[in-house]
């Protein structure tokens, strides 16, 4: 499949590629390398333009976009109920932008629209990296922390755990990211289980791609 990835950094992009291939069960061909957004809310602002560009100017089958939840609402199955949309959930908002944007696009390059792959790291991608290495780092733990007001860890502390510093250089970030996601390369179900509202939706989207392409 031909996939574009909209991410915050080359490190995120490298890790996401591994995870995408893990879910799709094979290598992907990257389209439009190095699409970048400057975090939330910049990613929401540029997403319509990115979708439009990929739709008309490339042969991308799908676009994967992943954001950090930071301290915002964690996506839950309730948000997925028909007609439901949580206005403070970044995942819901990205899905909505996707929906609104592709709705008005005519078919192009032999496909109806670019397929959607949306995920939301809770609270940051380093939590995904720690999945399977640190039992305490899960979406549930974070959601409980948001509910009680006592967060189990901070984003900077997650960075310390992954990189040994909260100021990693880009090469270090890439090295560590690739080393950590290796655990999920063969089987991403643990990641899906521990992060059901963040990696889960992305995995679900990607499986839909596979169905459409089979």
């Amino acid at each position, binding site marked *: 499949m031909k996939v574009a990835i909209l991410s915050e950094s080359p490190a995120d992009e490298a890790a996401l590629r591994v995870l995408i291939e893990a879910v799709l069960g094979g290598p992907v061909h990257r389209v439009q390398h190095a699409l970048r957004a*400057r975090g939330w809310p910049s990613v929401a602002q540029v997403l319509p333009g990115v979708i439009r560009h990929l739709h008309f100017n490339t042969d991308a089958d799908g676009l994967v976009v992943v954001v950090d939840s*930071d301290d915002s609402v964690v996506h839950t199955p309730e948000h997925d109920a028909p007609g439901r949309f949580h206005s403070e959930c970044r995942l819901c908002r990205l899905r909505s932008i996707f929906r609104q944007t592709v709705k008005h696009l005519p078919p192009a390059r032999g496909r109806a629209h670019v397929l959607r792959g949306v995920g939301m790291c809770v609270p940051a991608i380093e939590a995904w990296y720690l999945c399977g290495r640190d039992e305490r780092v899960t979406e549930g733990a974070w959601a409980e922390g948001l509910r009680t007001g006592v967060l189990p860890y901070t984003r900077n502390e997650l960075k310390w755990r992954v990189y040994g510093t909260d100021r990693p250089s880009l090469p270090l970030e890439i090295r560590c990211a690739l080393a950590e996601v290796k655990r999920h390369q063969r089987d991403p179900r643990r990641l899906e289980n521990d992060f059901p509202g963040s990696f889960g939706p992305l995995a679900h989207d990607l499986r839909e791609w596979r169905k459409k392409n089979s």
Partner: protein
Amino acid sequence: MADGLVVGPASWHSRTVIASVAFRNFKALRDAHVALTPFNLIIGPNGSGKTSLIEALLRLRTLSRLPPAEAAGPAKKAGAPEMIFRFSPPHEHIEARLGCVSEFVCDLLQINVPAADAGWLEVKARLACIRSFLFDHYAMAASANRADGAGLSTNAANLAAVLVRWSEGEAPAFAGLQAEFCRLAPEFTGLEFRPAGEGRVELAAILDGGGAVTAENLSQGVLYLLALLALAFAPRPPSVVCIEELDRGLHPRMLREARDILYRLSHPSAFGLKRAPVQVIATTHSPYLLDLFKDHPEEVVIAQKNGRTAHFERLADRADLRELIAEGSLGDLWFSGIFGGVPEEK
């Protein structure tokens, strides 16, 4: 606090040189105070005191080389400019007061310990190594006198001389710089030096695939990048590095790298380096650069200008910061004016 997770170093104070500076009647800084951390990004409108802060440090450096004035010296003129410097542990008991006759003549340094105090001598040695930079790509593009390669000059005009000296006598530093340069500018595979006559040397970057680009034909951004790397990879870096307009000439996507190059100075352990940290004070007008400090707002100082006076505020001191950055980037929020640090409008 995390439940058992590894956290960062206990205190940054022990790693800095200057803990704080207080200003009285110095240019726009009529009554201002700023606490300094290992890394400080100063933002604010023109004339808000960003450069004045750097000037103050340079004046301190200059005067600290001289014997301090007697405590009971000539009576200070009321309302005269004054700057008070405090230092980081273990020298937090030392206070240096810089008195001025006018905004332009500051020549009276008083310290609250004897001139021979061991602590002051240690502080003094570190103050002597304060350096300030405002890179000039025209100057960098020219050839340099080989003999001038001891340390990077204020405008980095001697970049070629510094790097050729490293290539001949500081091989690890030069190799590190060259490797990082090639990573950041992948169209190049290395650096080379060419004699330019009369003891001068010219810098060139070797192109991937053959050929080379001489410094005068390198882009402004590439030259600035090389100058930043020359600071970060210096075998004997200064104690304090002040850089004006850090973002100048750099593509927005390179700003993260520029920040990280300076983090290499201020947080060497994060890069696996075993050397003393360098305190960094950088100024910028780039919202994109500011965006990169979302996880470290304590490193951002906002220079606030109100009419003809100015003062400093730490971004992290803002109580509602967490709520604000939930729906906006730091750069956009700064531009909007809600942080202050923007030009006044009539």
